[in-house]
């Protein structure tokens, strides 16, 4: 018989004999003083591999193009040393690549967060109308003569938030049911696309053409101001993203269990969606709706890490790798004609989406928020 008394007290002695110590499988604990952090070992390895891959992709991006630049020269430019390739690498390729990298990272995180909250891999901001809301309002603003890239990103954020709110309100029936949420989102996405088209036919020819290119998602002509905006958004949201990474652990459980564990589910969920919507909208605002990155990146990352929730850092890295590589291909595939990067991501993403929808039949749909 054990003589240990009640639970929890600070002075409780360690039970004897000590059984084998248990911690979540696959995690390591980092400790400093009283602070301790759980780290998923495989996720760390995957993040390291993705970082190397990203480094290789960015280098290739800087070297390959209309004229080939040797890696050594490209690196010189990045490090700010004088080089004859200053113009091609430093002025043309580098800023565009940085924008692509940040757009990919933002879409990756946004997709991971929205998919986590909806507990459905289909519920990505580019599927359920958030990107389309951002597009519609942006194109609307373009047709009314707002062409400043200093204003447009904020218009996009507003559009994304309004679309998210609308989908949420229409999907709510005393609770959020994942399938209904996704279907209503897809409906809104279609409706918002038509509104965008309407704006384009109303606007004058030049504006429509500009909007059309923006709409397919293009990094063409993007430069440091856009990179700065995206970079500072990610930086400002960094604490929120760190919080989100941990909050995901509980939100991925069912509602009753999460509540019983002391999670303020409504607030946490709202917080996660807000971060996701802002990131998706800012990314859409700078590069247009680069379709399917938010849908694909988190699921690729999760399959690699095999974690129980979608890994945020790895989703961001995967998104960055995907967009940088896709834009490299978009630039070179039919050279000298450059494709918008969105065409490339769509070519990969669309078959995946079809496969995913086909597969969904076998997965029970889960209720989110409230008892149905």
């Amino acid at each position, binding site marked *: 018989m*054990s003589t240990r008394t*009640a639970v929890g007290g600070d002075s409780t002695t360690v039970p004897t004999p000590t059984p084998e110590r248990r911690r979540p*499988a696959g995690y390591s604990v980092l400790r400093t003083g009283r602070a301790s952090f759980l780290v998923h070992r495989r996720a760390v390895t995957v993040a390291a591999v993705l970082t190397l891959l990203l480094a290789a992709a960015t280098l290739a991006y800087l070297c390959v193009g209309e004229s080939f630049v040797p890696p050594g020269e490209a690196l010189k430019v990045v490090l700010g040393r004088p080089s004859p390739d200053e113009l091609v690498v430093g002025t043309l390729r580098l800023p565009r690549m940085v924008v692509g990298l940040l757009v990919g990272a933002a879409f990756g995180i946004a997709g991971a967060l929205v998919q986590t909250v909806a507990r459905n891999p289909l519920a990505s901001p580019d599927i359920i109308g958030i990107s389309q809301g951002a597009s519609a309002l942006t194109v609307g603003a373009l047709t009314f003569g707002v062409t400043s890239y200093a204003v447009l990103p904020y218009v996009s954020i507003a559009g994304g938030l309004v679309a998210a709110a609308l989908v949420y309100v229409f999907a709510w029936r005393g609770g959020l049911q994942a399938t209904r949420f996704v279907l209503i989102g897809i409906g809104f996405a279609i409706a918002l696309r038509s509104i965008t088209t309407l704006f384009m036919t109303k606007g004058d020819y030049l504006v429509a053409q500009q909007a059309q290119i923006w709409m397919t998602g293009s990094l063409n002509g993007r430069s440091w101001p856009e990179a700065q905006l995206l970079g500072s958004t990610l930086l400002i949201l960094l604490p929120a993203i760190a919080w989100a990474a941990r909050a995901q652990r509980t939100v991925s*459980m069912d509602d009753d269990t999460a509540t*019983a564990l002391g999670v303020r589910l409504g607030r946490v969920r709202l917080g996660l969606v807000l971060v996701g919507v802002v990131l998706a909208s800012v990314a859409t605002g700078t590069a247009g709706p680069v379709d399917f990155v938010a849908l694909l990146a988190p699921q690729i990352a999760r399959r690699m890490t095999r974690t129980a929730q979608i890994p945020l850092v790895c989703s961001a890295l995967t998104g960055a790798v995907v967009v940088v590589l896709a834009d490299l291909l978009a630039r070179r595939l039919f050279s000298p004609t450059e494709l918008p990067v969105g065409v490339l991501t769509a070519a990969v993403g669309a078959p995946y989406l079809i496969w995913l929808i086909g597969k969904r039949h076998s997965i029970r749909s889960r209720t989110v928020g409230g008892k149905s």
Partner: protein
Amino acid sequence: MTRLQARELTLAYEERTVVHGLDLDIPDGQVTVIVGPNACGKSTTLRALGRLLKPRAGSVLLDGTALAKLPTKRIAQQIGLLPQSPVAPEAITVADLVARGRQPHQHWWQQWSDEDERAVTEAMSRTDVAELAERPVDELSGGQRQRVWIAMALAQETELLLLDEPTTFLDISHQVEVLDLVRQLNHDRGRTVVVVLHDLNQAARYADHLVAMRAGEVVASGAPSKVVTAELVREVFGLDCVVVPDPVTGSPLVVPGAPWGA
């Protein structure tokens, strides 16, 4: 002493009122079993005791304070609750799931203390799931999965534990196993346990304190030997029966009466 009480509790789902003006005292350090026919409001009551359902009127009191006024994390340090059909995240491993029971004791800067490790280790060995630690929860049998969920609730190390029909999808040997475990938890640690069951005989066998509900009201409560009578069974379940002593435990055993009209 009763730490957990319900006062004039009225519970409803949208328009449908399920429980009307219910008063309930959960005796400390005992196993309370709530029984009743389907849709009598027993699970609804348990959900309200664990603040999963907001009362329409009245309140649930923990140490005299309404649950609605307490921070949910503080409640989670006192009351553990296992819902009727919890859903695990896809591909989660057993040890990872059990570890999430530690959530209410953790902070962002303190994600895994020695205390967490001790609690999880202990919960897993108690429920006999230690050797499943690395397995994905999806791959387990119903009985194993239920033990894992109970381990998660145990790892929370709360003085009060609420279990909503923990035996539902289990075969009889696993049902007995789970209920024995519940009894043992209460016996070894003096934990207060509230269980919702629909099997009256199991309720009579495992309860210190039995609460019989019908149509959203408490019909009778007290020790099983006092509460379980042929009249009560007729009133609550609408069943004619004979009540005899259980040959093993001596607790009341309900035997349904003459089914063929003999």
